[in-house]
């Protein structure tokens, strides 16, 4: 499978720029006390987000983690309603009842972030069971930390046993919260767990958007063909702390600097410039447009009302 065509490459960069601008603005707003909550940004991991979305169809499902702004923006969620949700406003996707860790954008089949590490893996199986007759596929993201939960192993077993159309996307960013991988698990790669479950896997450079897309394409095709689940392990890094406000003193400066050099955004824009698909000015324009789009979202969010407190108990039951 070759590289995506130029238009798609530019789309990928645009969407990555939007996600980056969104999350950088979220950090600012948080420190200005305009957003509250426990917020986890995925700055540095955007290539995985857009690669997943690029290889799913619109009616395929996506489940996220606690760090899923990027997944959902990539899948097509509206930045206005995303930002409004982070700001706790009634115009947010979840009317402000969910917040960053519990985002759902059902209109684009972004079925949920979750505050429970590994918690969405079982849900992905159920959705896959429900939609497989319609030829749809479910992708679920999780981190290296989730690989130590019981639900991870139970989910791999059942998905393989029932040959469910699931793509397990591991965003291996090397840390489970504040603990490096070597201290939390004995395996070197999360995908090593696939072998005993008879599940194929790919290990890719998660900051190389084309590599992730190629692995995703294979995994999605297998799932859609009824050949069962696949794991795509993306080796990546979060350039910021575990949560907004995390001083991240558990990481060495040279490690962060090394990964900063592998930042997926300049990496992709460099490819586009090299290939003559975009000029330096065109790249700058895309970045500026992304920032502008996010400003619109911020205005929308901060101008929106909150639910009244009388609404608090109205949504408890369906």
């Amino acid at each position, binding site marked *: 499978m070759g590289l995506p065509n130029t238009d798609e490459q530019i789309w990928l960069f645009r969407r990555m720029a939007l996600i980056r601008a969104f999350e950088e603005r979220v950090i600012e707003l948080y420190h200005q006390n305009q957003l509250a909550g426990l917020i986890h940004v995925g700055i540095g991991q955007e290539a995985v987000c857009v690669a997943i979305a690029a290889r799913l169809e619109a009616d395929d499902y996506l489940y996220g983690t606690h760090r899923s702004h990027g997944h959902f923006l990539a899948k097509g969620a509206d930045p206005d309603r995303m930002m409004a949700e982070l700001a706790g406003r009634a115009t947010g996707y979840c009317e402000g009842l969910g917040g960053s860790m519990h985002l759902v954008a059902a209109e684009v089949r972004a*079925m949920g972030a979750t505050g429970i590490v590994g*918690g969405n893996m079982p849900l992905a*199986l159920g959705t896959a069971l429900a939609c497989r007759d319609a030829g749809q596929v479910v992708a679920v993201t999780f981190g290296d930390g989730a690989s130590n939960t019981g639900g991870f192993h139970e989910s791999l077993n059942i998905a393989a046993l029932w040959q469910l159309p699931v793509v397990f996307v591991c965003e291996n960013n090397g840390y489970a919260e504040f603990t490096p991988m070597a201290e939390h698990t004995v395996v070197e790669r999360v995908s090593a767990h696939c072998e005993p479950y008879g599940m194929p896997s790919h290990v890719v450079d998660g900051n190389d958007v084309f590599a992730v897309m190629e692995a995703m394409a294979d995994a999605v095709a297998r799932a859609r063909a009824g050949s069962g689940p696949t794991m795509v392990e993306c080796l990546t890094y979060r350039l910021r702390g575990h949560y907004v406000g995390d001083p991240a003193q558990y990481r060495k400066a040279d490690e962060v600097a090394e990964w900063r050099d592998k930042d997926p955004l300049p990496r992709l824009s460099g490819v586009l410039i090299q290939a003559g698909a975009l000029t330096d000015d065109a790249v700058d324009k895309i970045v500026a447009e992304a920032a502008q789009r996010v400003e619109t979202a911020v205005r929308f969010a901060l101008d929106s009302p909150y639910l009244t407190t009388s609404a608090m108990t109205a949504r408890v039951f369906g």
Partner: protein
Amino acid sequence: MAQIRFIDALREGIAAEMRDDPRVFVLGEDVAVGGAFGVTAELVEEFGSGRVLNTPISEDTIMGLAVGAAVAGKRPIVEIMFMDFMTLAMSQLVNHAAKLHYMSGGQLNVPMVVRVQQGAQGGWGSQHSQSLEAWLAHVPGLKVVAPATAADAKQLVRAAVRDESPVVFIEHRGLYFREDADGAGPADSLGLDKARIVREGSDVTLVSYSRALVETLAAADVLAGRGVSAEVVDLRSLAPIDLDTILTSVEKTNRLAVVHEAVVQGGLGAEIAAQVQEAAFDLLDAPIMRIGAPYAPPPASPVLEAAFVPNMDVIVAAVERMLGAAT
């Protein structure tokens, strides 16, 4: 009226919903061979293995799997073999099933039924006998029902399947093979949230549910022979609690005891007592009494187990104490 066993009525209710709605399916450990007690026996013959799914022993994941199927348009009935094993599935039940509708601002619905069996009987000991319904009734977003009769089992399971919210459906293994009247009405005629006065009386109201209702009704018979007229309310729904029906009865009797098999401390009886005294303290002629298991894990010893479960004699004695104290 024709007689039917609780377990058969329950199975008929499940099968009726599966016939009516192709979105309904059953999953759980051993369900294709009937499960541990035979509730789902022979469903696989009628509906096939695509709708009666045997799962590995992975409670957390099968609960989450049911949630994921429900949000994508199916109506799963997931079986957790023993309430004790619900502890393994609590994260998915409490953090996802109960909250996804709320946290998503109504974008997602989670129409699923969690069937679970509980109760102390047969000396199965501390890890196969616990009654943990109060934990579940404490969680906003979960409906909890616990039928005591065959007719209610059939009708409530149908109503539970049709509900748009997650419903925990509690079965007591001491009820499965009891026979009583097959009087279930149409699926839509009974909500999930209504208590029922099953015996009229004027001296004391006894609220109970599930297997404990059987003992409570037997106690009411004995009390009647001793000149005490007990009104018995079958709560049926543990969350929400039908306070109106209880208050209507207490208005008449001015005395209330709550009887359940669960441990008294932190049990449903405490919640009902609190709600009743807050709403109608002036109606009460005596302190509200809670009758349930002592503060101990269910013991395996048959002698101790018999003393652990509140039986007819315990209920009679407690009510007599209450009436004696009040007069």
